[in-house]
């Protein structure tokens, strides 16, 4: 009987990583972390700049469209898992929510000698990638910031619009 692996059982984020995509767009993103970090900063600034307008329209009303847009774009570039509280700028543009242990502060001790994930050997550890990406970024030491525990209520919501919500407030 072939071993049936149920990745969902190992996957706190509810979706298995796609090991086939060892390269692909997310790997490209890490290689171009510097450029993307800048683009990201610009987009955050844009969100902040248009805050009054966005607020006038109503964040609730925008949520659906913003989340969809984010899912489509960041999904392609970063394999975004829509955690709703983006830390890409502190993780070398390698999305930490692809880590099967959802580690947002650095790799666990189980990384394989070839840089493979402890749980999915065929996938490169997101933190091995993150470290590479971080070297390319201007704010190299952003990766050293201690990240607070994730707020599970924000899952699925737009991280862009979250910028406009009070930190620690209700999602």
């Amino acid at each position: 009987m072939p071993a049936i692996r149920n990745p969902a059982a190992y996957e706190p984020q509810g979706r298995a990583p796609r090991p086939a995509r060892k390269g692909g767009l997310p790997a490209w993103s890490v290689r171009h972390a510097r450029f993307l970090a800048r683009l990201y900063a610009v987009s955050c600034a844009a969100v902040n700049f248009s805050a009054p307008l966005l607020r006038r329209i109503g964040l609730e009303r925008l949520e659906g469209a913003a989340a969809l847009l984010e899912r489509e774009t960041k999904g392609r570039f970063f394999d975004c898992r829509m955690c709703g509280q983006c830390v890409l700028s502190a993780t070398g543009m390698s999305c930490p929510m692809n880590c099967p242990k959802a580690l947002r502060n650095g790799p666990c001790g189980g990384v394989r000698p070839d840089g493979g994930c402890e749980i999915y050997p065929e996938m490169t550890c997101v933190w091995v990638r993150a470290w590479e990406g971080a070297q390319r970024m201007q704010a190299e030491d952003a990766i050293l910031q201690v990240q607070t525990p994730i707020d599970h209520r924000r899952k699925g919501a737009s991280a862009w619009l979250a910028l406009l919500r009070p930190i620690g407030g209700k999602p």
Partner: protein
Amino acid sequence: MGAPMSGNGGKPWAPSPPPGHVSRGRLERVLRSGQFAVTAELNPPDSADPGEVLRRAAVFEGWVDGVNATDGSGANCHMSSVAMCALMTRAGYSPVLQVSCRDYNRIAIQGNVLGAAALGVSNILCLTGDGVQVGDQPEAKPVFDLDSISLLATVKQMRDEGRFLSGRKITEPPRLFIGASENPFAPPYEFRPMRLAKKLAAGAEFIQTQYCFDVPLLERFMARVRDLGLDRRCFILVGVGPLASARTARWMRANVPGVHIPDAVVARLEKAGDPKAEGKRICVEIIRQIRAIPGISGVHLMAYRQEEAVCEIVEESGVLAGRKPWRRPAGAASDAAAVMTLDEALESGVDD
């Protein structure tokens, strides 16, 4: 039960830590006094018999400064770390509570931390935990609500600010000496010292590393650690352990996440007439080499299924330099008595 202790504003059960200390534990006192410390890992029984825990702990008596009670290590189910620690504190040992983020969410963890401290535990080791797939129940749901670093920050907040993550007040904060693990032997190698810095920033005061079988790699890691000045901000205990045979070494390499064993070590075991003795000899040699590296404060012995070898290894390596770690004074309560007090507690009016 017992004479009330004094010195903490009339609270009978909790004398304050000595000045300059965060906990009342012996491990912290030994480390802060600048002595080379020895800790050992206790493997939990698959049993509800308290005697098994105490018998296993007794093997280490007089040889170690702290006993780590593993928490479902390798994602296998055993007696819980909190329970083992509670049994050990009753008998007078100095246990290290291990908390792995794999099995509990933040609500359970904070509750356990308070409970363990109330039971007299003074040391905590904050871990991410191995993935469930390596254990005996791979179909389990992995939790990973916190990670090791946010767990450190959580425990530190509870202790130093006397608040839960939510900000709610804790009337008597847990006086814990906070530890973390590190694996200098896994990629990304250049990130590892940085990650250690991150752990210190989050609250770690002592570090216990993964098994060291590759001293040059450890030296490289420590050189970077010293450059960053991290060795002066924490106590680093390097993990060591005897390998029983070349077969065990290969099995560990393949099955225990994060264990790096160089081929040279495996070859040595292969050639040895008595692999078990050779494994111990390798371990003693590694300990002596580690002792010579600046910035290292102790060793952490993990002798899975060879617990009785721990005292021999400690003795042969000479790391204690004549020092005698705590042991139960002659005529003190025996294991049986420690278990008895449990029974008494149950009988004397605590109706279930």
